[in-house]
């Protein structure tokens, strides 16, 4: 209210309406007071003059001898005493009033000490009765609140108050009515500023003055604003839908304020604490060129890959956008294709070499056997040649395996119960396992797969041998199977020495082995068999803790 427009209208208007009323009242009072004063003064003065004339007449009569001086004086004094408050000082200096002698020292007005104040005006009228050498004193007091003035001016005061009240009330009502639409407009604008639901503006639409124009314009403005807001909301909603529907994580990084993430970014970061940390710590270099990086790290023993893009937007360097996409699956596929391509090349090369070696080797073997039969060899020589034959056989076996690896192996998938296969393999491997102090565990699952039974046996056998080899001090080897609606995953877990990431990358390469007696073809063959049975193979390993192979095969025929 203190700074309201109503007060700004009200106060000056009140002054304007009250001031004339007050001035008229005051002037009226003043003029009445003045006329009353003049009237009183003139009456008193006239009275003194009449006494003077009367004294002069009596003095003439005394001079003519028609009246004694004593009688004349007595008559004059009698006349003077009849007037209340009138003083006479005779030739002896004696001051009397109402027939009584008065001590002049007690009279303020006589000694010149009586002064007028704000509310009371004092005056002394003096008349000399020269014939008698007397002086008449008539002290008069005038005030606003005594005497007849209040009676005379009562109506003036009343009318002043009356008109003042009406004027004030009209001013209050007028200023209220004048300021009301402005207040309404201000409230309306406040509501717009707050951005909430805007109430209807309570101003007549028929109003044609400036307020009417302002109100109409505001209403139109709000209407336009609402329409635009609706459009902006729609676009915003669409953008948000798009941003939140994409699988790519997006981050808007603004210097000095919180970064904004889309739903995919939140989801990925919630599932991957390392990614969250890396994203939040990431500093974008000031470049308007799009930069690309591949981030990889392990989550729950599994390696994950992200394709990260970022660039500064807007040119000011304050805002940047960053996207990241989980490319683990894609990357694995790429690695698989890469591995398969490498295996195929190696297979072709090995097959070529094997063919080239096999024929001369057969000649060497035949010649060696012929020499044994034809030559008379001592026992030592015979042992040496027999060793030659053994090595030739060994070489031949390697060549056979290599040719087996390189030649296409046709798979005939059928429904296979995993538990049966694993159980039969455990029977076969039990003795070796006992020798190596390995405990075999089978977790029954009743799972069925669409896979070539022989291929599965070979895969599992190879992986079991591999696992047992990784546990020179013994340990546990567990085969389990679980899966989703369409897929089944067999896990072969050992508690062996484990592998580093570098080793894991190469284990499916032909002839790669960490063991001196190994051929380096076992896992290559496993990989090839898995691929030929429409399966996938994955491996997770922690050095010192053990390794797990994941074999995923379809569970139904139609999925093949």
């Amino acid at each position: 209210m203190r700074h309201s427009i109503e007060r700004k209208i009200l106060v000056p208007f009140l002054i304007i309406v009250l001031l004339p009323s007050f001035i008229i009242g005051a002037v009226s009072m003043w003029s009445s007071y003045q006329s009353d004063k003049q009237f009183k003064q003139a009456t008193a003065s006239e009275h003194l003059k009449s006494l003077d004339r009367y004294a002069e007449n009596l003095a003439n009569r005394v001079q003519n001898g028609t009246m004694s001086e004593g009688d004349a004086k007595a008559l004059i004094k009698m006349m003077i005493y009849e007037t209340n408050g009138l003083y006479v000082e005779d030739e002896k200096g004696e001051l009397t009033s109402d027939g009584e002698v008065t001590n002049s020292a007690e009279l303020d007005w006589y000694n010149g000490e009586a002064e007028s104040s704000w509310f009371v005006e004092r005056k002394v009228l003096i008349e000399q009765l020269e014939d008698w050498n007397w002086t008449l004193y008539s002290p008069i007091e005038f005030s606003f609140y005594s005497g007849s003035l209040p009676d005379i001016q009562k109506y003036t005061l009343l009318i002043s108050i009356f008109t003042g009240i009406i004027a004030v009330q009209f001013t209050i009502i007028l200023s209220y009515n004048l300021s009301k639409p402005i207040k309404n407009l201000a409230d309306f604008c406040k509501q717009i500023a707050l951005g909430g639901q805007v109430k209807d503006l309570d101003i007549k639409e028929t109003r044609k003055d400036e307020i009417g124009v302002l109100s109409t314009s505001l209403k139109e403005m709000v209407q336009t604003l609402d329409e635009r807001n609706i459009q902006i909301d729609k676009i915003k909603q669409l953008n948000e839908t798009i941003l939140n529907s994409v699988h790519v994580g997006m981050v808007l990084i603004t210097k000095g304020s919180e970064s904004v993430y889309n739903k995919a970014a939140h989801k990925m970061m919630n599932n991957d604490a390392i990614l969250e940390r890396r994203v939040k710590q990431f500093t974008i270099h000031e470049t308007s060129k799009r930069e690309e990086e591949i981030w990889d790290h392990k989550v729950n023993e599994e390696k994950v890959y992200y394709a990260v893009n970022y660039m500064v937007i807007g040119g000011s360097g304050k805002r940047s956008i960053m996207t990241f996409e989980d490319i683990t699956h894609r990357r694995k596929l790429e690695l698989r294709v890469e591995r398969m391509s490498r295996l195929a090349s190696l297979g072709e090369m090995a097959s070529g070499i094997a063919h080239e070696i096999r024929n001369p080797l057969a000649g060497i073997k035949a010649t060696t056997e012929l020499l044994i039969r034809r030559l008379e060899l001592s026992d030592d020589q015979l042992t040496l040649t027999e060793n030659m034959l053994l090595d030739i056989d060994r070489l031949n076996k390697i060549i056979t395996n290599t040719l087996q690896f390189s030649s296409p192996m046709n798979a005939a998938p059928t429904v296979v119960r995993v538990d049966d296969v694993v159980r039969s393999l455990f029977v076969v491997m039990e003795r070796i396992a006992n020798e190596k102090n390995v405990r075999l565990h089978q977790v029954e699952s009743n799972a069925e797969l669409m896979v070539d039974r022989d291929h599965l046996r070979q895969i599992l056998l190879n992986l079991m041998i591999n696992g047992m080899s990784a546990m020179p001090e013994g340990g546990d080897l567990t085969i389990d199977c679980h899966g989703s609606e369409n897929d089944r995953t067999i896990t072969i877990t050992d508690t062996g020495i484990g592998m580093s990431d570098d080793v894991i990358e190469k284990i499916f390469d032909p002839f790669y082995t960490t063991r001196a007696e190994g051929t380096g073809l076992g896992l290559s063959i496993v990989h090839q068999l898995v691929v030929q049975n429409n399966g996938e193979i994955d491996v997770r390993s922690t050095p010192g803790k053990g390794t797990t192979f994941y074999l995923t095969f379809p569970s139904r025929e139609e999925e093949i």
Partner: protein
Amino acid sequence: MDELLYLGVFLLYTIVILILGKHGFDKTDELKGYFLAGRNLSLFPSIASFCATWFSAASLLGLPGLIYEGGVSVLWTTAIAWLLGIVGLFFLSSKLYTYNVVTVPEFFLIRYQSKLLQVWIGIVLSISYLLYVVIQIRGFGIVVSEMLEVPYMVSVFLIYIFVLYTTFGGLHSVARTDIFHFCLIVFGTILGAILVVNEIGGVSRVVTGFASFGDRGADAYLALFPEGGLPFWTLLSAFFSLGLGVAANPQYAVRILSSRSKHVALKMIFLSTFFLVLIYFSIFVIGIGSRILDPDLQFTNTDEIYPYIITYLLQTPWKGILLISVVAAAISTANSQLLIMASSFVYDITLPIRKQKSHDSKIISWTRWVIFVFATLALLIAFTPPKGIVQFSGHVWGIIAVSLFFPLYGGLYTKASRKNALLSTFGGCLAYVLAFLLIPKEIQPAYHPVLPSIVVAGFLFFLKGGRFNASFYRT
């Protein structure tokens, strides 16, 4: 000198009222804000407004005069009859508050689903209060014109502009100015009692002064019951016309509805009773004391006794406060009645008939015009009041009692039907008119028309529904 003193006090009063009344203008954008102060009045403003509305100029001027004339036993047919009505208000407050209504006639629309009843009660209130406002203006005009020695027309115009101004701001303005009026009434009556006792020469002189009661002995004057006892029918008439009139008076129902909560409404009535008793006691002291001061005053109208005492028997500048307390009582009652009158006319008569929805601000603006028209009409009537209007004013509470009492209280406490409510209010009013015409004027103070008509209204209300079918609400 006295006129100057009165004018000075009057000027101060004017300034305060102008400032206080102004605030209501800012809070009147909604109907509930305008008619019921947003139903948000706290305890003290509620008490102040209740008490200030309770005392009219007639109470403050008439009661000391009646006690002066008739002695203590006058209390039975005045203060005690009025205070009995407050018992009804206790019952009213707990139930009525739960209704989400803007005006009292709207309660009848919601409770009985009867637009006819709403419009009818609106008409009864508009006419009754118009007459009562005329009486207020007239009574006040006579007193002020005598005290300030100004023409009657000038003094009635004064109250007119005050009442108009304080009502324009709605109940917010009325309640705010009522706080000031309440303080003036309490202070004025207590001060009046003290000044009168002081003028007599203290409490001991009051006791000894009883002996000077003219031709009537002190025993008879001070007796709670007059010689031979109070006529039964006079007492019953006073109770039915005044007590039930108060109990069904929408002025108090509005104060209940405007309270912040049901709890505040109940407390308001409870605490107000204390203030009412205190003020009545002060008025009682003034009446008795005036008799001791001058036992031989002879006036044609008892209303003139208290102003005479103030003007001629009390020699103190404080008497300006006593005069202004009478002004406060007149204006606080008149503006409240004017607001109810206008709200009844606009909200309960014209809006239901027009059947057109209007914006709140439009209705408020329209109500202000109606206030202006009604106040001006009351002023014009007060300039030259038709013969008999003063006598007729004695029937206002009776008409309100027969029209509203049963539909209001019965509506809250029984399952009475719309038909019974309509029968009761129309039948009661008709019976009242007949009784008014048939009962000789001389015996009407004892055999008031309210006696047969309230019985008729009650009978018609319970005729088929309600009590006879044992269908009182279980509370």
